């Protein structure tokens, strides 16, 4: 039992939440002491987000009590949660790009809070110094990097004197150096008595920073542990059960012949806050995975769109497939030549939400299923069934709508669909983002199998560990520039991390000052 001289900051007692067809939280009890950094772990759909939404007042539980500083409370809305001193940083930030930092922060404060603070900008500067957040109140949000924006979100919680900070996968968008900085902030907060609830998929981070961890599976608490006494492997086992295989090191391969080339590709941004591509060149070889690291928003989306042809601008000679220029071809024609893509957004781009899996198979895989312009639905249906079985996609059947699948399962389906076309070149963005450990393993193995068949794979990811695990050669993007490409064995997380922050740009002699 807990020590009697200390009152828990937050205690959840038997929280239960039933959604139609799914028991999201089943009798969950957790307690957090002041200053405790507590990890909440579990696969997708284990009930983590429902639980934190309950704490933050977005979801009201069917049963169970919430005890805050020793007194039972009912948190009906996020504003009540904020009044209690609960702050939350969501995975997707909610900042207005066209406003400054202090304007953004002002927006979520009440009049009385503003009066109590006095000069907001000064308060931000002061807090910024205190916690090493390095947030300038006068800068516009669109000019901030993702890491800086996250610090603005944290600042937003700090100005309201937060006692419990909830972070939903905070590190998935950061460079390793930024992660280290974030952890320093969290440690300072913790020393001052602020409790932190930390959701993550990255287990080594949990063992590094968290005091305690609660592991959820199927809506229930299956285990609590002290992460420092565990290894990432043993925690992973608790999360997925004993059946899970572990991602071990995979053999690195050296590609044979050059398949796909990007030559001196420069392209101005299409969107106002987009990234221009600056003189990008690289080569994809048959039987090899090229990993591109980078914080989101540094040109990955633009690069993918121009390679796939979704960006319809003509860059004829900048893209070649087997020595033929393809930069002027329509996206559909590029697919016919053997290109395939796994996009970052699964629902709404990689798959049509309201269509069945059968229809979503036809979305990109029409080869052999169209006879004289007519769709051979029975064959697609059969093929979809084999895809579902082969990639262990959890769903009711081939008739299930794409939106009814969990993110990980839909990703397995999309991955299977693209790989099933035996592409020569696969461009794959963030393949395991938000995907649980079991599904990630399946996706990794599918990618490696495709590589071993002789395909060339471009793997764009924010997950550095994944890149080191899978990529045979590596590079990083920053602000639309591509770093030198090196063999994975000859680099390390530190160097790639520095490249992600752009250190290669100034040291690079042929940098032509294209940055505007």
């Amino acid at each position, binding site marked *: 039992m807990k020590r009697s001289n200390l009152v828990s900051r937050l205690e959840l007692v038997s929280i239960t939440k039933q959604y139609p067809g799914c028991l999201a939280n089943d009798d969950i009890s957790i307690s957090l002491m002041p200053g405790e950094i507590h990890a909440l772990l579990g696969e997708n759909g284990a009930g983590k987000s429902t639980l934190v939404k309950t704490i933050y007042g977005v979801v009201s539980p069917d049963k169970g009590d919430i005890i805050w500083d020793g007194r039972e409370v009912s948190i009906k809305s996020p504003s009540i949660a904020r009044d209690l001193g609960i702050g939350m940083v969501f995975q997707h930030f909610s900042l207005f790009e066209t406003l400054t930092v202090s304007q953004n922060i002002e927006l979520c404060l009440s009049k009385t809070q503003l009066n109590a603070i006095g000069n907001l900008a000064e308060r931000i500067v002061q807090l910024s110094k205190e916690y090493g957040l390095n947030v300038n109140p006068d800068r516009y949000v669109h000019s901030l990097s993702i890491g800086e924006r996250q610090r603005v979100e944290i600042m937003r919680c700090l100005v309201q004197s937060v006692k419990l900070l909830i972070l939903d996968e905070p590190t998935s968008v950061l460079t390793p150096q930024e992660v280290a900085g974030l952890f320093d902030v969290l440690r300072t907060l913790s020393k001052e008595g602020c409790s932190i609830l930390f959701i993550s998929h990255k287990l080594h981070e949990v063992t590094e920073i968290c005091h305690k961890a609660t592991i959820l599976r199927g809506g229930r608490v299956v285990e609590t542990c002290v992460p420092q006494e565990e290894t990432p492997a043993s925690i992973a086992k608790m999360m997925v059960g004993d059946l899970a295989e572990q991602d071990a090191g995979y053999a690195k391969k050296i590609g044979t012949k050059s398949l796909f080339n990007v030559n001196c590709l420069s392209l101005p941004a299409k969107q106002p806050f987009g990234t221009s591509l600056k003189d990008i060149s690289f080569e994809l070889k048959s039987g090899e995975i090229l990993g591109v690291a980078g914080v989101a928003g540094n040109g990955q989306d633009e690069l993918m769109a121009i390679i796939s042809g*979704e960006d319809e601008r003509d860059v004829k000679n900048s893209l070649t497939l087997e020595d033929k220029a393809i930069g002027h071809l329509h*996206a*559909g024609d*590029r697919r016919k030549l053997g290109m395939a893509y796994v996009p970052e957004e699964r629902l709404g781009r990689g798959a*049509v*939400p309201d269509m069945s899996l059968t229809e979503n198979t*036809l*979305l990109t895989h029409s080869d052999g299923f169209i006879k004289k312009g*007519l769709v051979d639905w029975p064959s697609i249906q059969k093929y979809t069934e084999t895809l579902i079985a082969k990639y262990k996609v959890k769903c009711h059947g081939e008739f299930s709508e794409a939106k009814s699948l969990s993110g990980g399962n839909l990703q397995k389906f999309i991955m299977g669909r693209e790989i099933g076309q035996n592409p020569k070149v696969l461009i794959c963005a963030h393949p395991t983002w938000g995907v649980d450990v079991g599904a990630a393993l399946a996706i990794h193995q599918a990618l490696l199998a495709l590589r071993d068949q002789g395909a060339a794979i471009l793997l764009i990811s924010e997950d550095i560990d994944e890149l080191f695990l899978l990529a045979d050669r590596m590079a990083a993007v920053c602000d639309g520039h591509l770093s030198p490409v090196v063999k994975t064995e000859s680099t390390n997380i530190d160097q790639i991390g520095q490249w992600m922050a752009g250190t290669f740009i100034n040291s690079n002699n042929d940098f032509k000052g294209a940055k505007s």
Partner: protein
Amino acid sequence: MIRIQARTEPSSMMKIASPLLAIVLTLIFGGILFSAIGKSPTQALHVLLIAPLADSYNIGEMFVKMGPLLLCAVGLSLCYRANMWNIGAEGQLLAGALGGSAMALYFVDSESAFALPITLLAGIASGMIWAAIPTFLKLKFNSNLILTTIMFNYIALYLLIWAVHGPLRDPQGFGFPESAMFSDATLLPTLFDSSRIHLGIVFAILSGVIGWFILSKTHLGFQIQVFGADEPAARYAGFSSKKLSWLVMLFAGALAGLAGVSETTGPIGQLVPNVSPGYGYSAIIVAYLGRLHPIGAILAAIFMAVLYMGGDLAQIEMGIPVAVVSMFQGVLLFFLLACDFFINNRLAFSNHATN
């Protein structure tokens, strides 16, 4: 307290129920309106909705009106499925009537068996040209299709009026703005001796079946649906937005053009200024009432044709102004959109006082 709450999933029940509910609400509204102007609501609704189906002559007339509505609505359904907001069926219909009539007048002394097919093709081609210009403007200059198609409706109307006052006017017509009566060789054959039902209704039903076939059986139809449901996915899959835009617009233009030429070579038999009582606009409502499904459009077109017929009868038998038809159409569209709101939203009844 009643609140509006977003549904987690669109209600499939509401998708079907919404048009039926909208019709019921429209009738209730109509009943109230008729009693307000001192007419018996039951008699008025009877004349509007039942009388058009009461005898074989009326049923025949109903099918005559259903033809152009359905032809336009099938084309529009495909356009709207592909997110091409074509409001120009009326103009395409008028262009078809004009082009077809010009050809029919060329054959005015002919007895050739090819005269009718060539006349129909001329109407179809004119409708396609009228759809092609706004499509070109949209794809080339990114102009707003809604605006350009509406403008082209007016251009077509005034072009037609100019033609019947000028080059196509009947020289022996005592100056009336009408063309000469077409030769029998260019008139659509009627299906029964006793009624004006002509081949146009066969074209219309056929177009519904073809539209259904395209959407559900062909790869092109699948691509159209993906474009409407999820444009980023369509671009990701590499479907050509240009090709599909051309396809649906030309298809819609062809059907609307056919509707126009079928009117002039069918029940009218000559080119007159008022070829269409707004079929191309009403077809928009038919398309939505039919849930943008070609087969659904057949049922919706019957309903709308009944309303057109009923409006005529109500004027003759009860002295109710024929404008009541337009009003019914407007109210119907209003209720349909309102009911459609509840496909994605629902009312939540909660007692806020206890919270």
